[in-house]
């Protein structure tokens, strides 16, 4: 399943690409929600994956949706350092 060698952000990208067979890449600044790469039915899985890979707990009541809108934002908020 997940390989140790794959960076977390690439695992998130891989998860997105697996759901969208017509895509070959996702740009770091591409809006995942506006571009319908993450929809209401895949959002839960998406949030769980970010939590698992980052070890950061996400409280839905305080989550700033801007922090998960792009791969760059996810990297900065959850995966940096």
């Amino acid at each position, binding site marked *: 399943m997940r390989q140790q060698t794959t960076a977390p952000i690439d695992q998130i990208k891989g998860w997105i690409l697996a759901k969208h067979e017509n895509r070959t890449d996702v740009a770091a600044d591409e809006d995942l929600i506006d571009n*319908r790469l993450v929809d209401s039915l895949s959002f839960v899985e998406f949030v769980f994956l970010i939590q698992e890979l980052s070890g950061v707990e996400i409280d839905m009541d305080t989550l700033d949706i801007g922090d998960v809108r792009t791969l760059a934002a996810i990297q900065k908020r959850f995966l940096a350092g």
Partner: protein
Amino acid sequence: MTTALIDTSERLRDVLNRLSSMSVEDYYNPYQVFDWPDSLPQEMWWMSPELTTTHGTEIAAELSQEQLYRLSKYESVNFYSLNVHGIRELLIEVTRRIHTDEFATPSEFFHHFIGEENEHMWFFAQFCLRYGGKIYKQPRGGAETIPPSKAASLLVFARILIFEELVDHFNSRMALDERLDDTIRKINRIHHQDESRHIAFGRELVRILFEGFREQATPEELSQVSDYLGRYMTYSFESLFSPQVYRDAGIPNPFEVRRRLLTGPRRPEFEAQVFRKTHSFLTRYGLIQAPMAAPESAR
């Protein structure tokens, strides 16, 4: 178009009249009907073990009886929390439609429906807060997924029906399960009683809305509806598997546990049991065209 179908269906009118009278006759005061003991016994099942997400899996085999009881407690609190969130969503949608031209005919029944759901939400929230100390949160967000636009009401009522049937699978079993505390059985029994009316109504309305939609829809739109409903069922089923629950039950690596359960050998069987009636209803009338959709966790 659909309005005409709703207004002219004699069968729907009969169902609405019958269900509305039943609502009046069966009416109870939810604020008086429960005793709410200060606490419930910890050393027993809170949810029928067969209905817990780890039942019959290698994960359950690693847990002590005490841990299994504890897990069943948090699983039950998650289940009632899902009810709270699901009811909020359906109240918003039904309230949006009551006494509009399109839904004039079912509006009388909508009053019962809205009133009863408000009360269900109250007793489920009470249970969570009293015995679990919290209502589990549900991640919500992402792009809206409702194709095509003229199917909006159809999909709203189909979603409500799927959700109510999923819940009823659990309620109807737990209501009769003598391994459970009386308070737990009662909450499930009372909800099951009201939901049998809601489900009977939902099936009639969804059938009619789909009839109207199908007359105008392209094959592509029909398959979009089918895909959406399949994905919605998968999503609803997977929401029973909560990493927060596994963590609260003291199980390490909760995200990994969730993934193992969702990709494990028991999942398809459990999912088929939960949606047996729903799936056969939706395929019989052509809303769903294929076998069960691929799991969201594996897409």
